[in-house]
């Protein structure tokens, strides 16, 4: 975002045929429509849940099937599951992306096979991920209903997003960078870590934020893996429900849970906003330390 493009410079603004004006108008309308939809959803959530929000809501454990009390244990479970999912998916995903973009020829069958599998993986319904996660992580690997099992299942779901965006980002880095690095005698690995990845950072961030959003939004995949228990987890092998699961149970299963569900949804959205801002700051900081802008 810091790299404001010359396309916005005043040199262009003076030359505006009808087509350009129309494009600008249309885009503003689109942005407005989408913002309005978002505002509508948030407004409905606020209307339903604001009365339920308080500091107690964040620090208490759930009571009365979640209709009173708070969501503290659920927040902890959610954070743990998210961390596990990212800890598993980020290294695996970015390593795969680096491989596909840097080390494997564009036409190799291994590369094409991996890319194809990832596209297929992206289309697996979330409920199937849940059933698979249950069969593989919970039963076959013996983790049972646990945060670990849920996190790893989520990691599988996140891989296509992370790899796809990271590979795009790496491929978009001009070859000049790689050639200059080679000319200077920098090893390919060093060039990757210190030069290419930082330049591709915006794409990595886009993938990361999409992935986090997706992970927090999932229910079907976690129903059979990390489970339903709303107790404060005492280890990674404990079952624990995420915020999205809690919202699902309250709005669809427990009579009278709507207000608590809306309040939980508001907490989730605010938490996501904070996570996104922090993630962007971190990556921008990393990029700032490694790349000197032109």
């Amino acid at each position, binding site marked *: 975002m810091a790299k404001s493009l010359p396309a916005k410079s005043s040199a262009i603004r003076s030359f505006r045929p009808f087509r350009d004006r129309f494009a600008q108008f249309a885009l503003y309308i689109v942005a407005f429509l989408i913002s309005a939809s978002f505002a509508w959803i948030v407004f409905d959530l606020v209307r339903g849940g604001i009365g339920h929000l308080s500091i107690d809501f964040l620090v208490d454990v759930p009571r*009365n*099937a*979640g209709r009173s009390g708070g969501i503290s244990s659920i927040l902890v479970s959610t954070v*743990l599951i998210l961390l596990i999912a990212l*800890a598993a998916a980020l290294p695996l995903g970015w390593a795969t992306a680096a491989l596909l973009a840097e080390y494997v020829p564009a036409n190799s069958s291994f590369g094409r096979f991996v890319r194809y599998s990832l596209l297929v993986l992206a289309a697996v319904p979330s409920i199937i991920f849940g059933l698979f996660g249950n069969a593989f992580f919970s*039963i076959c690997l013996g983790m049972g*209903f646990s945060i670990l099992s849920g996190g790893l299942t989520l990691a599988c779901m996140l891989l296509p997003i992370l790899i796809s965006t990271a590979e795009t980002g790496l491929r978009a880095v001009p070859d000049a960078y790689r050639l200059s690095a080679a000319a200077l005698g920098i090893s390919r690995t060093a060039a990757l*870590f210190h030069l290419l990845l930082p330049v591709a950072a915006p794409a990595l961030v886009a993938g990361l934020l999409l992935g986090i959003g997706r992970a927090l939004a999932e229910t079907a995949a976690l*129903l*059979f893996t990390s*489970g*339903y*228990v*709303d*107790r404060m987890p*005492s*280890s*990674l092998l404990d*079952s624990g429900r995420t915020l999205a699961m809690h919202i699902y*149970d309250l*709005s*669809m*299963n*427990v*009579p*009278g849970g709507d207000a608590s569900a809306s309040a939980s949804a508001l907490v989730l959205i605010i938490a996501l906003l904070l996570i996104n801002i922090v993630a962007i700051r971190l990556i921008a900081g*990393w990029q700032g*330390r*490694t790349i000197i802008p032109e």
Partner: protein
Amino acid sequence: MSIRSSIGMIQFVTLILTLAFAWHPRGNAASEKLVLTGASTIAPLASEIGRRFELQHSGTRIDVQSGGSSRGINDVRNGTAAIGMVSRGLKPEEKDLHAHLLAWDGVGIILHASNPVAALSQQQIRDIYTGKIINWKMVGGKDAAVTVVNKADGRSTLELFLNYLKLKNSEIKPHVIIGDNSQGIKTVAGNANAIGYVSIGAAEYETKHGLPIKLLPLDGIEATVTNVRNGTFPLSRPLNLITREPSNSLARKFIEFAGSAQVHDLVEAQYFVPAWVR
């Protein structure tokens, strides 16, 4: 990011994860764990009962998972769960399992509150659901097309309903098919010409809280939790906890607790009728 700081980052993350793993209260190995899986209808109630049981018997952990009645049956059979939650009676082919009645759940017909129709006979309900009556004016209501809301295949509420009307699912002509009670209630509340059937307790709760739906009497009996409790209401389903004999002592203790008077307030808080009352 320099190699040094990335190594530092990796060390930090590893430390956190190791701590997380090692962070078992030592009592965990000694504590007894009971796993229940099954119907999502029963899961919130079982969770609450489990919570109260844990308070009274320290060192126990009652883990309630959902996943549906069939999951409950499968898991009890293969030993994954000690107790299954099944929101229906057991079928003949399930006689290898034992059912312990937890509560009753009445099933009533709901209409939108603005619908002037106050009662429907069995035949009228049958005709509406099979598509013979397609407009409300044919039963004394407004001139508007009926929106028939049916439950998804396999649900016990559906089977109960079909048995009562002596219909097969393929004869029903639905306009909307729903999964959970809550979805049914919200669908009817949002559509002035809809008709559906849901758990009476849940519908009563929503009506009291201002949602625009109303329950219809069946065969002349008002659809209230009271009438389910005194047995006069014709349509209700059992909510069961199932086990495979021989079950372990913790499971037996829990089932005893769940059937006792100590949890009646919890059962009623979920808008079901406690078992022993009938």
